[in-house]
């Protein structure tokens, strides 16, 4: 013990199981901190973090920002909509300009897969990937696993089904890597058109019948249909999608056992999940959001401690 094996958090595939355990143990302590009446600790008071978002985000950006503030880091926010990117500046130029203002860490969301890896090779700062296209979203997968661990005691040996738009989902890929690293079994479920070809090669099983998948699993992670990433029609109508792959209270109550419902947000209520399921006792959707801050504090703290 005990440092991370990486200097950047670019994806779950670059982590090992020990890293994940270290992040979880550190997050346990931060979770206690953020439930105090005074939620702030001074650890990162000499660290400056830039939140660079080339793609829209509410939850992730707020969660990172809150995590950074609770650690007393100085932060600068940058979103592409209001920036010089629109004027033709390249990614490296944009970030180097930010770094010349003495920034130690960059949290970046970008529509292109691999943007984080590219950046880590060209700029001198610790990089945290907050989502790169349909590739990875590591902190989301970490907080998902952390929430499963909190609810069920352990991730190892648990059966998790990821339902919905797997093709366009960075949450799905990061979750698959994270869950497998911790010894969980993973299935994916959705319309064939929204399942990537050769997904079986990652060691996950494909199930196209939602009821079967739900009867098999301990945890169902419901994903949103990412309409903004779809350049063509992948299923006839939203109504038909809901009938086949949406989860409602009747379906939930008719299962053989009580399963845990997760959703990374934002929820399209009435499409992939109905309101009474999202707000039910079995849902840990809001726990996921709370845990997101603790997990991000842990990741930032552990990476920042390696900045010299």
């Amino acid at each position: 013990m005990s440092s991370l094996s990486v200097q950047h958090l670019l994806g779950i595939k670059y982590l090992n199981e020990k890293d994940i355990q270290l992040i979880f143990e550190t997050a346990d302590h931060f979770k206690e901190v953020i439930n105090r009446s005074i939620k702030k600790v001074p650890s990162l008071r000499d660290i400056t973090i830039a939140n660079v978002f080339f793609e829209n985000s509410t939850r992730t950006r707020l969660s990172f920002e809150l995590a950074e503030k609770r650690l007393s880091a100085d932060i600068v926010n940058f979103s592409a909509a209001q920036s010089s990117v629109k004027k033709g500046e390249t990614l490296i130029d944009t970030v180097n300009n930010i770094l010349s203002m003495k920034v130690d860490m960059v949290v970046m969301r970008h529509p292109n897969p691999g943007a984080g890896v590219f950046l880590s090779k060209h700029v001198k700062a610790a990089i945290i990937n907050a989502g790169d296209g349909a590739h990875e979203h590591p902190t989301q997968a970490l907080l998902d696993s952390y929430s499963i661990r909190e609810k069920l005691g352990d991730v190892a040996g648990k059966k998790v089904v990821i339902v919905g738009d797997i093709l366009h989902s960075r949450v799905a890929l990061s979750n698959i890597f994270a869950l497998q690293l911790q010894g969980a079994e993973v299935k994916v479920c959705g319309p064939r058109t929204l399942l990537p070809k050769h997904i079986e090669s990652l060691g996950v099983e494909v199930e196209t019948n939602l009821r079967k998948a739900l009867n098999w699993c301990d945890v169902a992670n419901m994903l949103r249909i990412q309409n903004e990433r779809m350049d063509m029609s992948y299923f006839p109508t939203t109504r038909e999608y809901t009938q086949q792959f949406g989860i409602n209270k009747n379906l939930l109550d008719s299962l053989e056992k009580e399963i845990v419902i997760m959703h990374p947000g934002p929820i399209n209520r009435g499409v992939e999940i109905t309101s009474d399921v999202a707000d039910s006792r079995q849902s840990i959707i809001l726990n996921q959001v709370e845990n997101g801050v603790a997990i991000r504090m842990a990741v930032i703290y552990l990476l920042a401690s390696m900045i010299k």
Partner: protein
Amino acid sequence: MANNPMSQKVLLTSKEIHIILHRLACQLLENHLEFKETALIGIQPRGIFLARRLAHILKESYGVKHIDLGYLDITFFRDDFRRGDKTLEASSTKMDFLVEGRKVVLIDDVLYTGRSIRAALTAIQSFGRPSEIELLTLIDRRFSRHLPIQPNYRGRQVDAINEEKVLVHWEENNGKDIIYLINK
């Protein structure tokens, strides 16, 4: 410790520790009597053994009915973040009472530079504003302080040089109560 190449000498034996703990308990009792307004807070990771031991002695040998005992982790309040090679590893904080308006006794096994206590003084503020804070330490390494911090209760004062290290073993953790002075 037998095959340890470092030179070491015994600073306090189990019997001496036993006597000192009872003296410290009596000194606490003199100032706090019923412990109604007082909370004992052990500083993680090493101070919690001493805090637990003192609370036990106060209850068993001196008839104190209830003592609020907490553990405080100071990791995120330390001033050496990023200054060493290793990531500072946190321990858990456990305080199921409020410190607002109460007397707090911070408890740690060895007082050395005083930086841990400085961090603890900041950390405790997250849980409220105590009316008064005291410091109890088993070993006080005088002449090595970096900050103007002194204990209110001390077990034994030691003149150790910087190359030396005080190693405290507790029965519940290491099988035996004993304190060594080690030459690094």
